[in-house]
């Protein structure tokens, strides 16, 4: 049975690119859920079990930092690993997110290799 991944990004293009890049890694992913902001992401998490969240930071309605806090506050989702995928480069902001509990950070632009490495590390997936 493949992994279930939630992609959270306000750009439909970024979601599509991430989805295709994940397919290119060869990791066994059965379902990719999509959300365009933090609120939608929380709803998806309420309705579905997911193994990993890939989330942007700069989004309308509820940004990535607020979303990360709410995911970890909820006992149902508190153990779900979150990887931030963003152009954000502030070391302080990334450190803050790591202190909040995110498992990793992928800087955009990304390569299939960088996505594969993170999936292997966080999911223990063999490719």
């Amino acid at each position, binding site marked *: 049975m493949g992994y279930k991944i939630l992609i959270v990004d306000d750009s439909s293009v970024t979601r599509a690119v991430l989805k295709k890049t994940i397919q290119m890694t060869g990791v066994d992913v059965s379902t990719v859920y999509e959300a365009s902001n933090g609120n939608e992401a929380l709803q998806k998490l309420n309705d579905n079990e997911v193994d990993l969240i890939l989330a942007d930071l700069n989004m309308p309605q509820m940004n990535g930092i607020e979303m990360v806090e709410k995911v970890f506050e909820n006992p149902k989702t508190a153990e779900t690993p979150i990887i931030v995928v963003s*152009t954000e480069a502030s070391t302080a902001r990334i450190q803050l997110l790591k202190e909040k509990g995110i498992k990793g950070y992928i800087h955009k632009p990304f390569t299939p290799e960088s996505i594969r490495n993170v999936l292997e590390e966080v999911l223990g997936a063999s490719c």
Partner: protein
Amino acid sequence: MDVRYINPFLGSIKNVFDTMINVPFNVGKPRLKEDNTPLYDVSGIIGLSGDVTGCVVINLSKEVALQLASALLYEEITELDADCTDAIGEVANMISGNAKKDFPEGNVSISVPSVVIGKHQTVYPSKKPIISIPCETNAGRMIVDVCLEKIPVAAGV
């Protein structure tokens, strides 16, 4: 404009093309833009605020926009539709976001991108120098226009 705010864009353009837009490209020499009108019809615009304010405009023809969107999405895009404009916005976002990490000042935020079609829809800040960085692909030229200003530190701070 301080070269320390221009050089990061040279590296950033190369990085974005090398990793996510696999089309042949060549980054040219930056030069001062002589007017306030974009050369091409498609513009992806990012605003910057914080220690540095201004805008970055990714300006390109329809042909180059379709080429870059197709390369980014791994599928042929033939219309200047929502997917194409979203892709150009993402290219603008990645180029600006990557460049800002190499700015001398760290406290700089970038806006979400907006994309406009039509030369007269793009308005540059008036009376401020604009540096144009040309980037050639085999479909034509993309220009990255950088118009940034460092905010002076207030006296006594």
